[in-house]
């Protein structure tokens, strides 16, 4: 039973990460490979707060959101100086490498490769949110807030201006839209969101070390978003659930544990490739707008169920 609850909480963390990445890719058109890193930032910040200050879950969430958001600034401000989308991707990879080394090597704070452990069970108003049902409930509340927040943002005037900037930055600026500023804002918000997922991870697993927040994690999240369908409401959620449930199911099959992770990763990689080559709109069909972006020359090949 405990195993099931672990899967649920980490699955919810994945949904939050996928939603955060979809805000970046689907709404703002920015592909970041650093989502896994902000996931880690949230986990480390929560652990440090629980170790050194208070066991409060809400405090940890707020602190993680702020820390994730602030840490995005030294990454996105230089990255967005260039108008080329290549630059943003590459900067995100470089940034992921830098922060990954900080996790692994800043021993006095992050505990290096050993990581951080032994922190108390998180609390809300002195009620213990222990791993298991209480944490599942807290996670569900959090993920609902995150999804609602993302949808509100995406549908707001702010989200509209961002989507316009994604389509044509110059035209948007001629209408008074400050594209660069909006993009910095969206990157800060999305990074803060990803950090929230890290808090759930830390609360559930009980320790954090650098091995969980690698490029591989970012790749898994990208696979979720691509699988579900970019820029759609259900896409990232469905993608995250599928890619959590499938490996969770696999653990009941007898595979040499040494190979399990590798097979999983290979499967994720294959899913990304097949989906992006054969069905770039993802299994949820996606909203036309993003499919259009991914498949510019095939306007006429619209399928049914495409009402927007």
């Amino acid at each position, binding site marked *: 039973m405990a195993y099931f609850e672990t899967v649920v909480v980490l699955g919810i963390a994945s949904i939050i990460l996928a939603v955060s990445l979809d805000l970046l890719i689907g709404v703002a058109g920015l*592909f970041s490979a650093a989502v896994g890193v902000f996931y880690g930032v949230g986990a480390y910040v929560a652990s440090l707060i629980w170790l050194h200050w208070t066991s409060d879950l809400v405090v940890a969430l707020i602190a993680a959101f702020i820390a994730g958001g602030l840490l995005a600034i030294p*990454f996105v401000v230089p990255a967005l100086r260039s108008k080329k989308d290549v630059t943003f991707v590459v900067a995100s990879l470089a940034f992921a490498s830098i922060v990954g080394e*900080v996790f692994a*090597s800043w021993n006095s704070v992050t505990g290096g490769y050993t990581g951080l452990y032994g922190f108390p069970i998180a609390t809300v108003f002195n009620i213990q949110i222990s791993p298991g049902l209480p944490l599942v409930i807290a996670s569900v509340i959090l993920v609902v807030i995150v999804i609602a927040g993302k949808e509100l943002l995406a549908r707001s005037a702010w989200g509209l201006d961002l989507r316009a900037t994604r389509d044509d930055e110059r035209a948007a600026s001629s209408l008074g839209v400050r594209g660069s500023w909006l993009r910095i804002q969206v990157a800060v918000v999305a990074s803060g969101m990803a950090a929230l997922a890290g808090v759930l991870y830390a609360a559930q697993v009980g320790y954090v070390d650098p091995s969980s927040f690698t490029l591989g994690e970012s790749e898994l999240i990208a696979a979720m978003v691509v699988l579900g369908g970019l820029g759609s409401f259900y896409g990232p959620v469905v993608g995250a659930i599928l890619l959590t449930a499938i490996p969770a199911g696999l653990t009941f099959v007898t595979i040499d544990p040494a190979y399990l992770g*590798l097979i999983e990763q290979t499967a994720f*990689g*294959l899913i990304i490739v097949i989906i992006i*080559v054969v069905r770039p709109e993802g299994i949820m069909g996606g909203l036309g707008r993003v499919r259009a972006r991914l*498949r510019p020359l095939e306007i006429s090949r619209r399928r049914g169920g495409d009402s927007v």
Partner: protein
Amino acid sequence: MTLFLSLAVGGLASGCLYALVAVGFSLIFGMTRIFHVSQGGVFLVAGYAYYWVSIDHHRPIVVGIIASIIASIAIGLLIYVLVYRRMLNSNREFFSLFIGSFGVLVVIQNVISMMFGVAPVPFPSSLLDGVHAGGVQITYGDMVGVASAVVLTVLMAWFLRYTVAGTRLRALSDNPELVRDYGLDINRYRLLAYTLGTILAVPGAIIYAYTQGLSPAAGPDIVTIAIVACVAGGVGSLVGSGLVALGYGLISGIAVYWFPGAWSEAIAFVAFFILLLVRPDGLFESAR
């Protein structure tokens, strides 16, 4: 001071290897618009093919090199045919090509991990010996690395400047429509650039395996350096990406003089962010 110089030499030598991969990446990206992240996978295939033939099965070095070239071209073409060709034909944008290529890299890295293990495979330390010139240590690996980088750079420059195919390739990178207007088959030239870029991964992979050890993680590491160099050098500028890759090697090499070794890569990447602030579109900003 001699320590500093030794570090600088070592850094420059690894920079040469990075430069080979980076120039290959830039060549492909500049001329085909494929953001070929799975170049990191090709790098792994090249390295492991050499390992399997020459180290594991004790065949002569030359046989290993040939096997490595064949294997990398084969995997490169396989990726092209299965993944890129379709996307290029339907004119999909950078983003899709990047995600697809990224997936391929992940697959190759993990399949190799299953075949050879996650840990580095054993290579003889023969290239780690070397000579001491006035206290500055220069390993044979450094020499071979620098030499092959110089030779290949000269060959590439000659090819692009003085052969018909090379001239047309440069035209392709400047203005694809023009090439089409002249009735040249654009796909053929794309494929040529792609194959050339692929082959450039081979020497880097083999020497890297001898000097720094070969493990599946090297794939993403190397390609990250290559794409950073490609962007920081200025997209489309082969010279720029080569120079930045050299600079990356140098900075991460000498960073060890002042900082703990674990920080060296991070410091080199921080330098990249500073460069972005100063020159957002890279060292050799392209007109496009």
